[in-house]
């Protein structure tokens, strides 16, 4: 990553969609999650039985549905970017709203999952597996909320006509962030819920 180029004006460098600054965030977020995933792998390698045994108690069906929901939302965001490239701002806003709705479904399902775990008495101190499960899913959950806020801001601005085919960096910026949120989940779900 060239940290010195592009920053002054995102328009200088068209190879990256969206504002250059969001890419610094994206890389930083991926780095944090990446280190977290490595720590998970490290901890699991020292305690494979515990991790395998505890993993069975996770709600894989909800996790799988949430995976589909997030992938769908990413598709909807892509449609939104395509729409604004055709100068169809109202259509763009509608696709974004649909993507936010998917985010809402994810959040609702996740809250149900958290509720079930907390009702069963699970805490961060239950064991190392649950420490990772709760930390990783909670941090990701916060990113979904953050992504929804960003998409909502972009959708409102799109509806007000702030973007056009010629100038829509904001839409691409929001879309890039949302794809990152999706990407992290696509790694997180198999890693924590499925692989053993």
């Amino acid at each position, binding site marked *: 990553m060239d940290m010195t180029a592009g*920053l002054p004006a995102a328009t200088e460098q068209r190879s990256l969609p969206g504002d250059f600054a969001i890419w610094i965030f994206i890389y930083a977020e991926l780095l*944090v999650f990446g280190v977290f995933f490595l*720590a998970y792998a490290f901890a699991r390698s020292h305690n494979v039985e515990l991790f395998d045994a505890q993993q069975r108690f996770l709600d894989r069906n909800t996790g799988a549905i949430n995976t589909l929901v997030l992938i769908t939302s990413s598709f909807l965001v892509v449609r939104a970017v395509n729409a604004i490239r055709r100068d169809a701002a109202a259509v763009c806003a509608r696709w974004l709203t649909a993507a936010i709705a998917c985010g809402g479904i994810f959040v609702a399902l996740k809250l149900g999952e958290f509720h079930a775990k907390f009702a069963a008495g699970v805490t961060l101190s239950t064991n190392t597996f649950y420490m990772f499960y709760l930390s990783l899913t909670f941090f990701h959950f916060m990113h979904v909320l953050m992504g929804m806020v960003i998409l909502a801001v972009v959708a409102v601005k799109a509806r007000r006509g702030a973007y056009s085919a010629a100038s829509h960096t904001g839409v691409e910026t929001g879309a890039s962030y949302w794809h990152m949120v999706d990407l992290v989940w696509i790694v997180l779900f198999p890693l924590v819920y499925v692989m053993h």
Partner: protein
Amino acid sequence: MQYRSQAVAKPYFIAAIGLFVGQILFGLVMGLQYVWGDFLFPEIPFNVARMVHTNLLIVWLLFGFMGAAYYLVPEESERELHSPGLAILLFWVFLIAGALTILGYLLVPYAGLAKLTGNDLLPTMGREFLEQPTITKIGIVIVALGFLYNIGLTILGGRKTVVNLVLLTGLTGLALLFLFAFYNPDNLVKDKFYWWWVVHLWVEGVWELILGSILAFVLIKVTGVDREVIEKWLYVIIAMTLITGIIGTGHHYYWIGTPEYWQWWGSIFSAMEPIPFFMMTVFAFNMVNRRRREHPNKAAVLWALGTAVMAFLGAGVWGFLHTLAPVNYYTHGTQITAAHGHMAFYGAYVMIVLTMISYAMPILRGQEASDERSQVLEMWSFWLMTVSMVFITLFLTGAGILQVWLQRYSTDPIPFMAAQEKIAIFYWLREIAGVVFLIGLVLYVVSFFVKGGRPAMASAADTA
């Protein structure tokens, strides 16, 4: 000077430098006490020297931050300060309260000071860095509120820039987090837990916002690079600071009785804390390389670049050295911590205040930049202080590594005091480096009184 009220910064800067000299003198006393335990005993016992050394540091940095804010806020807001009179009044309140507190430390036994100041009514004393009598703490809150009121109204009534808003956020956070100094639960775990909300969330949270905004301001001024470019960097840097620094508090929660997950959270997030500092280094050099003017104040540019490098080394690299829980298990509370503390405070906060003073003081005294001879002397002091601080850090790191080995890691660990004797050579070397630092500081003070050489002139290439 664009606005008359910016002049209130001057007494703040002068007081800051004066207290800085005091801090270093007590540092030298304490450094000597490491190897000569009875030095100045019983007049100035080690614990008192340490308290004065650290408290003076905090107080003079606060003077520096306030002076920096009074200087840059009117210029950024494009209006006079809301109340210059209030700023001067608070200056005297803070200076007198600070002086009385230090005299209290030196003249009255600590327990007596606690009784004298009515600590029983609201006990807050007796905790590292928060040793101030409760009444002094209340004074600090009053000064902070008055200061925020003054700065806040100036910003809200004028041009709102990113530099201003980040600075205001940092200063507000500084004031709010200090309120945890009044929370003093009986439970020692809880006490330490919230104590870090002042100590850690200051220096690895809101103070970094203050650092970032002051650095951005000076770079805008001395490089003439577009404000939009610098502001975007500032946004990214402070976001990274907060993402890593807030949960990074966990690196203090490994062994104080808090749940075990802090070992993971603290390790993972604080391992990322060097990133914003590295970005700051890239930022500063990048902006200076792309400068659109040659500012006559070379010393200020040197300080700005020095801050960016030394903050990364001291806070970033030396912090990372012992931030991971498995490493910290052995290094906790050893001289490794002292090494990190010295270079981080110097690199990040001492140097940013000196950067601001270096930039603003000549202007406050009616010149765009100091005379050539004065600047040369100032640059000498920069190198003497910075290089000697590198050596202080290296010697303490050497002491720390040896201490960890002798006292904690080897198959046959020896007691604390036995280990201290074996590492005494490092303490002597550190003391010598400390004397060089003092010489650098004296030259720094002298540089304000030196005139002559080619007078500094506004650059013809000034396009800003």
